[in-house]
């Protein structure tokens, strides 16, 4: 029995635990075994098996007493950007050294209170900066997928690559991520799983190491839409410790799952048919529209006229905030410190050794766009474009309830075949950054395979605070797509 436990969906595992078909300890052991089995993928920076088993044991006791929380005994992985009390938290960067937070992030606190079991901390692009998980100080992360034609390793996407891999390779039932420009949706698409970024302000950012504060939002990875909804439910809610967290009631995220799409209007933004969009992804997008239509939705073309400015806007605002958010890593109070002959040299050496290339690049871009003489031309202008993008969506949402788009312009690429030009790399985020700039909820659902056998995702973007509709449409796509392909290294379920 326990051999197969790691293949259960979160909803199935909940049911099995409640029915006492197996214990949380057995479920956790199955996950730990998978983590060992797939260690070569390098999904985790820090594994916490002892702690996981202790938590699972406590979960079993609560289940026995009838005091089970909504995630009681469910083994999950946590992106290593969430501070976890007593567990090293790295942001996949050397600058934090062996930093062990004396506090717990609000989101993970809620998860542990709901009964979830912590398997460990997953890898990412440093501080969340990257789209391929090649920027981790703890080594690159490999996707469990390869093209059927060869065994060459592929990138899992980023920045939450470790969490995506942990879910896709069945090492955990679900995982947390953060999404600043697509860091949940893009790796979910690359690894054939679901990923949702809720509305900005839905989950507290307290205790999440900041990348770009006005864009960062926590979200959920799972193997299907319902599981994503269940995990997100436990993460969401107002937090007085985060001034940008919304003091709104959290709706039932699973409420719309399985419901007919009759009466829903879904927009296809014509401006998303960008140069460089692979024809097969374009075809999948059409297919997705047809599936939704077949389930009763009205699908119509809409216009988001300023979409093409979104990527450039993102790559001004995000680095600007980075340059300030990362200033606290100065070698003075915690983390890495490399002594110099004087203060300036200590700063330079510590930060020089502590940050990776991409973090440095974005710190420099951000410092530049905020500096005297350039601030108005870059930062202020980018904020104005951001406002226009919000207005674009506001207008579209007068006509439709949600928007359907591809998640990425291409499927995952091979490690080593990434573009040399960082700007070309940034193009990966072309479809995802808009939801961050506008704060809207967005979700990626696996919808098909590319001609070379790799998963492709479709993205649903919804109205502010309307995650239930996003999840309802996601579930409809999932139902129609019947995406059952497992990564080729993972054996099919009996």
């Amino acid at each position, binding site marked *: 029995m326990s051999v197969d436990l790691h293949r259960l969906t979160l909803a199935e595992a909940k049911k099995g635990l409640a029915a006492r078909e197996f214990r949380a300890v057995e479920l956790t052991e199955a996950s730990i075994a998978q983590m060992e089995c797939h260690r070569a993928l390098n999904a985790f920076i820090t594994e916490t098996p002892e702690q996981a088993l202790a938590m699972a044991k406590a979960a079993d006791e609560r289940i026995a007493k009838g005091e089970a929380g909504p995630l009681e005994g469910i083994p999950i992985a946590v992106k290593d950007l*969430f*501070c976890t009390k007593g567990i090293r*938290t790295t*942001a996949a960067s050397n600058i*934090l050294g062996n*930093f062990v*937070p*004396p*506090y717990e*992030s609000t989101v993970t606190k809620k998860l542990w209170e709901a009964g979830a079991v912590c398997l460990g901390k997953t890898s990412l692009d440093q501080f969340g900066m990257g789209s391929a998980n090649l920027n981790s100080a703890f080594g690159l992360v490999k996707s469990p997928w390869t093209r059927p034609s060869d065994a060459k390793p592929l990138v899992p996407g980023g920045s939450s690559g470790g969490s995506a891999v942990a879910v896709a390779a069945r090492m955990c039932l679900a995982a947390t991520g953060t999404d600043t420009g697509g860091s949940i949706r893009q790796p979910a698409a690359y690894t054939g799983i679901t990923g949702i970024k809720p509305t900005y302000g839905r989950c507290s*950012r*307290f*205790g*999440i*190491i*900041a990348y*770009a*504060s*006005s864009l960062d939002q926590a979200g959920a990875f799972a193997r299907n839409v319902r599981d994503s909804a269940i995990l997100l439910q436990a993460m969401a809610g107002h937090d*007085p*410790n*985060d*001034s*940008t967290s919304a003091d709104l009631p959290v709706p039932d995220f699973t409420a719309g799952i399985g419901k007919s799409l009759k009466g829903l209007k879904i927009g296809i933004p014509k401006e998303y048919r960008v140069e460089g969009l692979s024809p097969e992804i374009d075809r999948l997008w059409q297919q997705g529209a047809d599936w939704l239509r077949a389930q009763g939705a009205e699908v119509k073309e809409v216009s988001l006229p300023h979409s093409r400015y979104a990527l450039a806007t993102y790559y001004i605002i995000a680095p*600007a*905030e980075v*340059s*300030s958010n*990362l*200033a*606290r890593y*100065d070698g*003075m*109070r*915690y983390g890495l410190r490399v002594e110099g002959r004087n*203060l300036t040299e200590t*700063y330079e050496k510590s930060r020089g050794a502590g940050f990776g290339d991409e973090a440095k690049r974005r710190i420099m871009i951000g*410092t530049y766009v*905020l*500096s*005297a003489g350039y*601030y108005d031309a870059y*930062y202020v202008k980018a904020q104005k474009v951001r406002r226009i993008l919000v207005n674009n969506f506001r207008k579209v949402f007068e006509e439709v309830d949600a928007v359907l788009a591809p998640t990425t312009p291409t499927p995952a690429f091979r490690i080593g075949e990434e573009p040399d030009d960082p700007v070309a790399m940034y193009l990966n985020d072309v479809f995802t950054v808009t939801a961050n700039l506008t704060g809207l909820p967005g979700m990626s659902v696996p919808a098909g395979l590319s001609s070379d056998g790799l998963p492709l995702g479709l993205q649903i973007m919804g109205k502010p605070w309307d995650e239930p509709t996003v999840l309802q449409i996601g579930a409809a796509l999932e139902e129609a797509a019947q995406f059952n392909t497992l990564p080729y290294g993972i054996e099919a379920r009996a």
Partner: protein
Amino acid sequence: MSWTIEGNTGTWEIVVGLEVHAQVSSQAKLFSGAATAYGAEPNTQVSPVDAGMPGMLPVVNAYCVEQAVRTGLGLKAEINKVSVFERKNYFYPDLPQGYQISQYQHPIVGKGELILDMPDGSQRPIGITRLHLEQDAGKSIHDQGHDTTLIDLNRSGVALMEIVSEPDIRDPEEAVLYMRKLRSILRYLGTCDGNMEEGSLRCDANVSVRKPGQPFGTRCEIKNVNSMRFVARAIEYEARRQVDILESGGVIEQETRLFDSVKGETRSMRSKEEAHDYRYFPDPDLLPLELPDDFVEKIRASLPELPDEKRARFMAEYGLSSYDAGVLVAERETSEYYEEAARHGDPKQAANWIITELFGRLNKAGMDITQSPISAANLGKLLGLIKDGTLSGRLAKDVFTIMFDTGDAPDKIVEERGMKQVTDTGAIEAIVDKLIADNPGQVATVQKNPKVAGWFTGQVMKATGGKANPGVVNEIVAKKLGI
């Protein structure tokens, strides 16, 4: 008031604007719940937010916002319903976040005014440019030896109000008057304790010089002018330094200078080229601060009577001179003391007793009004005893001394020590009759020249140990001698 420097090339005037940092009186910091106790052990008043730990977020303290609005109203300033917290970015070990959260383009308080009470009784308005909220940095301690610098983060994140004046000040002494008046208003409002020794009130001065009628000259910012005593000295030194440079053909470099209170001079800290580019931008962790409609009105309704209004009222209601009223309203505690004392006796007399007798005693003893051994009620009672004729002026001073030394009530002292003024005409008449009988020569003299009748009065006072009522004695003496 006009203060000038006579140089070799003519007369120079100075132009000064002040930037005052006033620590908000608040139990907790501006963006964290950590305490703000002064003098606590280093690094004991620090939350993870104040230490700039990863993932920590600021949450604005509504009480500090209220205090800033209260101060703005006290300075008769515009209150901005929407203001924005921005990040001022620079690296320093005592700045844990790598930026200070401050307000830049959109401060919470806009233009206002502060009235200086000049020594000649006139008034002079100084414009207030703005007031904004910001967090303090920690403290670097360099002098502990071992070639190390220690950091104390207790102050990190403490709420400050930066209050910026217009360049309206033209005299070093005006700067002192400005500081005193500002402190007085802050203390009335209860928004800052005004304690310069503990760093609750700090002052930077922007100083330039020019020939009268000319445009503003290049200014230098003088940092660290942290006592009333040094404000005028630092400004005067800096003005003379600038005049010397200009008159010897040099130009003033815009720079930041530090006042050295030991040497009494200013020295360069950093030039314009070395000035930081602070890269201000709105703090994405904090939404724009929007004040609800009734927020400002509620605070306005709760404002105390402020020094300017109180002074006007004291002059109108109690007939005090502008100077006396100004002295009595400078501290709220003094004004309250005065009004309590004045309820029992003559208001003008009360003012005199407080300003000359009580302040003299308190000064000598190194005490302030709140520590006075003589309560306002007791001083009032003393005034009452003078008014009803129980005590003569001289006796009252003796009683006052005993009151100051013992803290006892005046009626108790009078009772116990038999210091009551004798108004019993029978007893006084007997003494006068005896004096007339014993001193025929003096009687003749006084009858010739009634102006010297005081000799008899003096003798009666002597005989009664000062307890006789001088008015009554005069009357009886005049009657008996027929003058």
